[in-house]
């Protein structure tokens, strides 16, 4: 059981900034995210795209914003449960919560802050009737353990960076790698496209374009794929694994069943006060909440995170006095023993 002060669901910009604000109040945070890395959408969808409305940054790349936020909250030593999706929540008699992930990891805290944006990112599944029957029986949407492909025949479908990256990686691991894409053009970093071209020229991978996987063949597990090239008759290709990489799409998922008031796929909160939901002790901040006048902007998420932390302090330290401190005056004392502070002003006589 992981124990902390605030469980933050979602490690996007809002969740990461909440760690910093909580830290100033001496509250510790643990973040849960379905993605394998922090940053949420900023890292997963558009890391190389610029953002122009972060205060004091005329321009910052989304990926760099994540790096900066990680750096800013580092001294407050946030815990991370990554690659796991928050599945259930249980309120204990003492008012504290236990959040359990899809892999069974349990987290215990008096406050839960849902900063899950549009939801957890789920792989987009190709429209093949029986595909769900083969999940984990040869069909994998996310590559977790590359070793399982050693000396196996693998077919990857998709035309973006992840398809290209995994083709390159698995070319050295698998017995054979076949890349199937609907077009001859690929959308990825130039380096990756060139590398795949080189592997193809060397005969280390097979490229089938423009083509689509039109059926999965097998009994208990994947045995072959039916591939249809444009304007040609379908043919079967024997394979052990089929890895469709068509990106991820966010889904509210299990949080929808937590008894929270939901409107327009977002969690209703009290914006007059502290962004608390209808369940005391559970807050929702950032793109995933809704209230009159809500704007889905990163900078609004930062504000909401800050107010949420103040309310969390009151729940965790009932009745305890507190006065807002400015970091310039008080400095920042990390949980790791570091201290940041403004240099003392120089007092010196002028003769």
């Amino acid at each position, binding site marked *: 059981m992981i124990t902390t002060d605030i469980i933050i669901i979602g490690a996007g910009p809002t969740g990461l900034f909440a760690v910093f604000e909580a830290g100033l109040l001496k509250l510790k945070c643990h973040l849960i995210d379905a993605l394998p890395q922090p940053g949420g959408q900023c890292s997963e969808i558009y890391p190389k795209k610029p953002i122009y409305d972060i205060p004091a940054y005329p321009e910052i790349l989304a990926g760099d914003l994540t790096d900066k936020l990680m750096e800013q909250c580092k001294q407050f030593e946030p815990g991370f449960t990554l690659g796991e999706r928050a599945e259930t929540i249980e309120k204990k008699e003492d008012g504290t919560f236990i959040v359990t992930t899809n892999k069974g990891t349990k987290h215990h805290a008096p406050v839960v802050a849902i900063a899950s944006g*549009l*939801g957890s990112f789920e792989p987009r599944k190709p429209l093949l009737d029986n595909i769900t029957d083969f999940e984990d029986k040869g069909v994998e949407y996310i590559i977790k353990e590359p070793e399982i492909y050693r000396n196996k025949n693998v077919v990857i479908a998709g*035309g*973006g960076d992840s398809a290209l990256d995994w083709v390159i990686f698995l070319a050295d691991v698998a017995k054979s790698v076949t890349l199937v894409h609907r*077009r001859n*053009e690929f*959308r990825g970093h130039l380096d990756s496209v060139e590398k795949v071209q080189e592997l193809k020229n060397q005969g280390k991978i097979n490229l089938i374009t423009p083509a689509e996987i039109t059926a999965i063949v097998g009994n208990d597990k994947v045995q072959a794929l039916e591939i249809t090239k444009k304007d040609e008759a379908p043919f079967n290709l024997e394979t052990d694994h089929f890895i469709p990489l*068509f*990106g991820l799409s966010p889904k509210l998922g299990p949080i929808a069943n937590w008894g929270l008031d939901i409107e327009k796929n*977002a969690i209703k909160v009290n914006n007059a006060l502290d962004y608390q939901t209808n369940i005391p002790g559970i807050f929702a901040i950032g793109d995933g909440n809704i209230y009159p006048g809500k704007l889905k902007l990163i900078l609004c998420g930062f504000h909401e995170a800050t107010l949420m932390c103040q309310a969390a302090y009151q729940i965790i330290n009932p009745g305890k006095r507190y006065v807002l401190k400015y970091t310039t005056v008080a400095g920042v004392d990390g949980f790791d023993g570091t201290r940041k502070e403004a240099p003392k002003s120089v007092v010196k006589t002028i003769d």
Partner: protein
Amino acid sequence: MDSNDVKITIIDRDGVKHNIEAPTDMSMNLMEVVRSYELASEGTIGVCGGMAMCASCQCYINSEHDLPEMQDDEEAMLSEAFYVKESSRLGCQIHISKDLEGLEVELAPES
């Protein structure tokens, strides 16, 4: 109707036809118009914000309008999307202009 508006028809994911007016002077795109009229559930359209990086705003162009040509990123995204037809476009890449008067589009299923 504002003189800067154009009339367009949007068929939502339940097949319901909406005749709406879209401003040409607010630098909006078709995905944003759909959102402003709430014709698709929040969170199921315009997920990437309009960068041609998610295909959640895919639609089919039913009318014979001459639309601006597809750029590489839109074409690439559509080649990875599902339910794609010859008439598929990404709503976020279609700028609302006077030329769109009378346009009819249908939202592609959620995926």
